């Protein structure tokens, strides 16, 4: 049975992250949109919710924790995965307390993120 493709949003102000993750995540047939600015991403999310949002934490204007809160306020079923190059116990715990699905430190392999997305996908489809 064919499953519906997941709609995945990637938000990172480092252009290279979206460029690398988009094709890697699209390999399994999912639909991926990459954004470099939180505001643009949130505006897009307001038009149409995504199943999964992968967001960096440290970004100008809106940080990843605010994105997490605003996404979950709009769509509780969306799984938000935090990625960061500045991981600490405090930030990780804060992200989880605020509802992040998972938290992963950069650098990571696309396959590591894929595994998290598979888990998120199982929860979404259960």
């Amino acid at each position, binding site marked *: 049975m064919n499953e519906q493709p997941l709609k995945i949003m990637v938000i990172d102000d480092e252009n290279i992250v979206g460029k690398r993750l988009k094709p890697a995540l699209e390999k399994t047939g999912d639909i991926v949109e990459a954004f470099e600015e939180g505001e643009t991403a949130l505006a897009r999310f307001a038009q149409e919710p995504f199943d999964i949002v992968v967001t960096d934490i440290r970004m100008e204007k809106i940080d990843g924790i605010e994105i997490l809160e605003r996404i979950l306020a709009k769509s509780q079923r969306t799984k938000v995965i935090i990625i960061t190059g500045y991981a600490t116990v405090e930030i990780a715990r804060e992200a*989880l307390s605020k509802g992040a699905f998972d*938290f*992963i*430190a950069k650098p990571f392999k696309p396959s*590591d993120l894929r595994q998290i997305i598979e888990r998120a996908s199982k929860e979404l489809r259960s």
Partner: protein
Amino acid sequence: MSIIIIASDTAEIEHSIAQKVAAAMDYQLLDRRILEDTAKKYQIDPGKLADAMKTTPSLFKSLSSGQWRYLLACVEAHVLDRLLADKIVCCGLSAHLYVTGVSHALNVRILSGDDSQSEKERENRLQQRKKWSMAAYNEDETELSRYDLVINLDQIDPAEAVKTITGAAGYRKFQVMTYSMKCLSDLALAARVNVALLKTMTDISVQARDGSVIVSTKAGNRQKRKKVETIKELAGKVEGVRYVEVHVKKNLLGVTTG
């Protein structure tokens, strides 16, 4: 799911609370009973192992500083490997001093309501533990700000303490995540490498990340090359190690350190 590490200035109270928390949460209890397995695994004297957990080396004791560090490293490596399994309550193994930076490890300090000891005895015991923890891990275990939760049994009865701990362990912030599991597996790998090196060397410090290991050590100019080669060879044999980098500081005393 999380790891709960319970520490107290009184071993009996620490164990009793840990046992009750493990039973209440249906978690496995990891306590000093594993020291026998540790001794078997690394073929060391279990008596010395237990001794190393409570005393510091001195000129008047049979345990040298190098042996002491090796014994503690064996315990650390064994405990960290067991903690990778998750859903564990750990006590009596000083894990609160080396399970650092792992967000799903809830560190609890129980301040004992032990009336049988005088204030002076209690103070002496705290000073001993402070001295031991500073010598072993450069951490002051009596510093309460390093714990996630501190419970004073003079004010809270043990049953309430158990409820408080199990309640806190249920907070989302203490749940396992990809980052925290990776931190824990990096610590476990560094600990395994540490054991492999401390068996024959001293002045070793190991950090690991994703199978890459950085070993910091000291050596005189003459021993530097040989020491680097030996470290690379020994560390490279440890399961899970993909790459070894060695940083050598000059040993100003010119003493051979392994």
